[in-house]
C-alpha cells in the first residue's frame, strides 16, 4: 500500500489507463443521463436519469480519491435526496407528462445562446489554465480520507460546519412551516360526522369502482344498470386529475360482440344438428 501511495504523492501528469477508460465510458453515460434529465417528458424519468448521473458522479468521486464524498453521494444524494424528489413527483402526479413545447417567445433561443456561450467560455477558461500536472491526493489521504476530512471540518472549518447545522435545522422548520396547513374551521365531532352520514345521500358505503368481471381498476367508474358510468365509484382525487377511464362504451360494444359471437355459434350448432 505504501509504494502506490508514494507514487501518487509525486506530481503526475497522467492517470492510469484504467481510469481513463472508466472516465470516457462513464462520462459519456453521465452526459447522456444529464441530457435525458432535461429532455424527458415525465418528471419521474428525469429523476431516474438524474439518479443514474449522480451514481456515476459518485464513482468519479471515488476515482478522484474522495472516498467519503463518494459514499455520501450515493447514500445522501442518490439515496435520500433523489427519493425525496421521487416522493414529491408521486405526490404531484406521476403520470402527468410535460409538454416540451416552448410558450415564452424567444426563450429557447436565448437559453441556447447563453448556454452555448457559457459552455464555450467555461471550456476556454479551463483550457487556458494550463493544468498539465497534478499533485494527487496520496499525501493528503495518507491517514485515511475520512480522518483527513474530519480533521479539517473540526478544526479549520468548524464554524462553517456549525452554521450548516443551524441551516439544516432552519430548513427543516421552514419545510414544516411551508407545508403545514392551518385548520380554518372547527373539527367535526363524532356526532356531527355520524349525523352527516346518516342524513346525507349515501347511507351505505359508496359503490365500488370497476366493472364486474371485466375491469377492477380503481380508475374505472362502475356502470349503472343503464350502462352509464357512475362518478361516485371513483376516488375524488382521480376525478380531479381527470384520470378516470371510461369503459361504458367499451362494455356495450363488448356485449354486442359477445351476443353476435354466441348467435353465430348457436347458428353453427343448429346447422351441425341438421
Amino acid at each position, binding site marked *: 500500500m505504501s509504494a502506490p501511495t508514494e507514487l501518487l504523492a509525486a506530481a503526475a501528469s497522467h492517470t492510469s489507463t484504467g481510469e481513463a477508460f472508466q472516465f470516457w465510458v462513464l462520462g459519456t453515460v453521465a452526459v447522456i443521463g444529464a441530457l435525458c434529465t432535461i429532455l424527458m417528458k415525465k418528471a419521474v424519468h428525469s429523476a431516474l436519469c438524474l439518479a443514474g448521473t449522480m451514481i456515476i458522479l459518485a464513482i468519479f468521486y471515488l476515482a478522484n480519491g474522495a472516498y467519503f464524498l463518494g459514499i455520501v453521494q450515493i447514500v445522501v444524494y442518490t439515496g435520500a435526496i433523489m427519493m425525496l424528489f421521487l416522493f414529491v413527483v408521486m405526490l404531484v402526479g406521476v403520470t402527468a407528462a410535460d409538454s416540451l413545447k416552448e410558450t415564452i417567445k424567444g426563450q429557447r433561443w*436565448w*437559453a441556447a445562446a*447563453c448556454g452555448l456561450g*457559457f459552455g464555450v*467560455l*467555461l471550456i476556454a477558461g479551463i483550457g*487556458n489554465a494550463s493544468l498539465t500536472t497534478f499533485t494527487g491526493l496520496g499525501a493528503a489521504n495518507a491517514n485515511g480520507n475520512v480522518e483527513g476530512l474530519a480533521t479539517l471540518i473540526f478544526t479549520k472549518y468548524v464554524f462553517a460546519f456549525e452554521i450548516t447545522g443551524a441551516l439544516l435545522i432552519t430548513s427543516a422548520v421552514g419545510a414544516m412551516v411551508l407545508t403545514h396547513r392551518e385548520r380554518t374551521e372547527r373539527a367535526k365531532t363524532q356526532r356531527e360526522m355520524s349525523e352527516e352520514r346518516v342524513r346525507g345521500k349515501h347511507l351505505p358505503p359508496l359503490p365500488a369502482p370497476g366493472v364486474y368481471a371485466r375491469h377492477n381498476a380503481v380508475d374505472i367508474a362502475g356502470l349503472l344498470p343503464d350502462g352509464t358510468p357512475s362518478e361516485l365509484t371513483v376516488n375524488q382525487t382521480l376525478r380531479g386529475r381527470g384520470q378516470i377511464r371510461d369503459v361504458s362504451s367499451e362494455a356495450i360494444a363488448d356485449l354486442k360482440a359477445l351476443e353476435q359471437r354466441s348467435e353465430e355459434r348457436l347458428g353453427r350448432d343448429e346447422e351441425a344438428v341438421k
Partner: protein
Amino acid sequence: MENLIALLIAAPLLGAAVLLCGGRRLDKAGHWLGTLLAGASFVIGAVLFVDMLGRSADHRTVTKHLFSWIPVEGFQANVGFQLDQLSMTFVLLITGVGTLIHIYSIGYMEHDENRRRFFGYLNLFLAAMLLLVLADNYLLLYVGWEGVGLASYLLIGFWQHKPSAATAAKKAFLVNRVGDMGLSIAIMVMFTTFGSFAFSTVLGETGGASSGRNTAIGLMLLLAACGKSAQVPLQSWLGDAMEGPTPVSALIHAATMVTAGVYLITRSGAIFNAVPDVQTVVVIVGAVTLLFGAIVGCAKDDIKKALAGSTMSQIGYMVLATGLGPIGYVFAIMHLVTHGFFKAGLFLGAGSVMHGMNDEVDMRKYGGLRKYMPVTFVTFGLGYLAIIGFPGLSGFFSKDKIIEAAFAKGGTEGWILGAVTLLGAAITAYYMTRVMVMTFFGEERWKHAKTASPDQPGVEPAAETHGAHDEPHPHESPKSMTIPMIVLAFGSVFAGGIFGIGDRFVKWLEPVTSFDHGNSPVAEWTVTAATIVCLLIGVGLAVAQYGRKPVPAVAPRGSLLTRAARRDLLQDDFNHVVLVRGGEHLTRSLVYLDHSLVDGVVNGTAASVGGLSGRLRKLQNGFARSYAVSMFGGAVVIIAATLLMRAV
C-alpha cells in the same frame, strides 16, 4: 427737549390709531380729535423751532436715539431722530399746512359718513411724513417713505366705491412701488458700501466710496424721488391721484408728500455732489418735468388736474434746483415751502369752488364766480399771483432765485437751463391765468348748464348730498374752510418776502445744505426783468385767448399738441404701449417658452422615460425562466469580461 421729537410723531400716530381702531362711536368727535392732535404736533414743532432758534447756527442739530430696532451683528438698524434746520423746515410745513387742512376738511367732509376714517388716514399721513423727515437713517426714512405711500393710496382711494378712484389709488401705489424699489436698492448699496444707513455715516463717508457706488446710489435715489415726486418718467400717477378728496390733493399731492423726493435729494446732497453726472441727470429730469407738467396744465379743463400739472411743473423746478448742487438746494427748499403755501391754498380754493358748484370740476362750466365767492376769489387770486411769481409775493422770490441759480450753473448748460426755467415761468403764467380767468371771470357758463350726474367719473359723491339740481347755486364756503384758505393766502403773500429778503432762508439752511453763489453770467436784475417779461407774456396770451373771447362749453378739438397734452402728453399711452404691452408680450413669449421649451424638455424627458419604460416593461413578463435567462446571460457577460481582462 429732544424727547419732544418723538412726541411730534406720536401725536398724529396716536390719532390715527384711535380713529382707525375706535370704530363708529368716535364718528361724532373723531374729526376734532384728529385736528387737535395735528395742532398739538404743530405746537410741539413750534416749541422745538423756538428752542432751535435759541441756539447758534452750528449747534442747532439735535439727535435723539430712541431704541435699537434690528440689532444684529454687522447690521445695526436704529430708530433715531435727527432734527436740523432742514427737518425743522419740513416739520413746520407739514404740521402747519397739515393742521390747516385738517380744519378745512372738517367743513369739506362734513357730509361724508366716513369722515372719521378720513381723519384717521390724514393723521397717519402726518405721522409717516414726519417720520420721513425726522429719521436719522435711511432705513427709518424708508419706513416713513412707505408710510406716506400707504396713506396716499388710502386717501386717493378714499371713495373706493368709485372705480376711477380705486384704479387711481392702485396706479399711484404701483408707480410709487417702482420708485420705492429704487430707494430700497439704494439703501442696500449703501449698506454694502458703508456698512450703515445712518445719515452721519453715509453722507460723511461719501468721499471714501468709489464713484461707481456713488453713481448707483445717486441714480437709485433719483428713481425714488421720481416716483414719489411725480417726475418724468414716473409722473403718470399724479393726475389720476386727483380722484381723491380735494384736501388730500392739497396736503399730499401738492404741499408735502410729493416734495419728499426733493427732500431726499437735498438730504443726500453729499452723494449727489460727489457725482456730477448724476446731478446732470437730476437737472434733466427736473427740466423735462418742468415743461411737461406746464404743458399738461395748459390743456386740462378739470381744475384739479390743471393744478396737478402745475404741481408737477413746480416740483420740476425744485428738482432742477437740487440738481444744481449747493447753488440750488436752498432755493429748492425755499420754493418747496412757498409752493406748499400757495399750492395748498390754490387746491383749497379749487375745493371751495367745487364745494359751491355741486362738485363740478370742469372749468368750462365755471365762469364769473368772483361775485359769488369773494373770499375764495381773493385767496385763490393771491395764490395765483404767488405762483406766477408776481413781484413781491412769495413765488416771485423763490422761483426767481431758482432761475438765477440755473443761470449761475454756468456755461452752455446754464444758458439752456435758464432758458427752460424762463419758458416754464411764462407757461406757468399762461396756464394759471387760464385757470383764474375761466373760473372767476367772464360769462357765467354754469347758469344754463346741467351739472354732471354723480356717477360720472371725476365727480365727487358729495354731490348726492347737495342733490343733483339742474342749476348750481354758487355760494361761499363755511368758515372752517375759508379760514385755512385765508391763512394760507397770508403765507402765499408774505412767506417769500420773509425768507428772501436779506437772505434769511439761505443763512438758516446753509449749515445743513451748504450754499454757493455760483458765477452767474448775467446780472441779478436782468434775470428778474426777464422773468417779469415772461410772466407778462404768459398772462397776456392767456387773457387774450380766454378773457377776450367767450370760452366754449365743449372743448375745441385743438392742435395736435393740445390733444396730446389733454391726454397727459400721452404718458399713459406710452406706459401702456411700452410697459403694459411690452410686459404682455414678454409674458406671452415667456409662457410660450415655458410651454414649448421648458415643458417640452420636461414632458419630453417624461415621455421618453415613459416610452422606454413601456418597452422595458415587456421584459418584466412575470416568468421566472425569463429572469433566469437574464441572470444567466449576465453571468456569461461577466465571465467573458473576466476572461477578456485576463487576456489583456
